């Protein structure tokens, strides 16, 4: 395989990394994603790394870069499915991926994006303004179910407060 496939789901892009990435493949993904964000007007990017057995500093940097790039292009990125062994290793490596938001599962990731991206139900790239004040019922189950006003917020604070704050580890 010479390209990682990017799927479009409503106004989200979904990338599921299924292969042991060599460096060029990772760089290509970075380029492809920014192009697709612009071309589709996507507001969110989900990167599923549950199949990745390791994340080293190169792949870690790729994820950070994708997060920053997409933010500049007005799309929010969430990395989902990081394995425990990978997370433990990253902490030891000293790579805390500042600025990258993460979620345990694809579902949690969708909820995180749903809370602020307002996922559209159709495949139209344009977001229906009439829906502006409603919960994204088209993706019920993805949106934070119990959220009252501001209820979606807690889902984001955990990750956001992390920001670059993960760097408290002192060794």
């Amino acid at each position: 395989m010479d390209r990682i496939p990017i799927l479009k789901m409503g106004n989200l892009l979904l990338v599921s990394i299924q292969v042991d990435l060599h460096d060029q493949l990772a760089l290509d993904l970075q380029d492809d994603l920014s192009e697709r964000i612009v071309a589709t007007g996507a507001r969110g990017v989900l990167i599923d790394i549950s199949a990745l057995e390791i994340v080293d500093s190169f792949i870690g940097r790729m994820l950070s870069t994708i997060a920053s790039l997409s933010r500049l292009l007005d799309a929010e990125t969430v990395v989902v499915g990081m394995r425990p062994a990978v997370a433990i290793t990253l902490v030891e490596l000293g790579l805390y991926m500042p600025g990258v938001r993460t979620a345990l599962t694809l579902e949690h990731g969708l909820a995180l994006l749903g809370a602020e991206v307002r996922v559209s139900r159709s495949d139209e790239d344009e977001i229906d303004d009439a829906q502006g004040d409603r919960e994204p019922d088209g993706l019920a189950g993805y949106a934070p179910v119990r959220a009252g006003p501001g209820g979606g917020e807690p889902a984001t604070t955990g990750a956001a407060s992390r920001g670059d704050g993960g760097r408290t580890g002192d060794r």
Partner: protein
Amino acid sequence: MDVGDVGDGWIEPLSERDEVLTRWVERVAGDLRARLSVPELQRELGEIYTALTVALTAGGTDLRAEQFGELRALLADLSSGRARQGFTPRETAGTVFALKEAATAVMEKRNVGYRDYVRFSEFIDELGLFTFETYVRTRDQVIVEQSNQLLELSTPVIKLWEGVLAVPLVGTLDSARTQMVMESLLEALVSTGSRHAIIDITGVGAVDTQVAQHLLKTVMAAQLMGADCIISGIRPQIAQTVVSLGIEFGEIVTKATLAEALALALRRDGFRFVRRAAGAEIR
């Protein structure tokens, strides 16, 4: 009778397989008081005897030599098997030493000289020592495995609420145990899809720098995975240690009690707690 090198005269008599092997099995069966059956011993010792005589016929008595590979493997199986079955080291090495007495009769019958007999005896001693070493190594392994199992048992991850897991830690925390906790907690977050983890250390006596670092790393790893991790029950003494060690708990959320930690986790999930008015019906 063959005239071999001086000192090798004990090898040829061992070709009287049936006689030596029968005695060997008898002796071992007696020593082990029927904890292993005679047919079992016949098979086990028979294989060893074959490997022994084949290797000796190939020449040389250096146990480390290539031709003794099969024998070493069989002896290793024997002693690790015995170690796991709970036989004592004496019983295990005794199985090998019994070969000495078992072979004495044929040695006498064949007029094996004193020098040769001593060489034979030394060789069997070496086999015995090898067996003993393997035995000890296996016991070490068994101990490690058992203490790992104990560790796993002593660090249960419990579900407090849908999406909220907790590990209540009790006793002394060492590095190995803390690491084990870290791994099982993170695994449990994934397998249950829980977004909140609480590490409760109310029952922990003291923490050293390393343990504190491990706790910190657990929290950071959980955050990297997209989960929230709260530490509850830090007692004043531990807080002082942590502060005096200069460990930064800055970004880490801590709560005084497990109950408060649970309340926080639930609030983060959008729950609100409201006390019913007095007299309201409780179902």
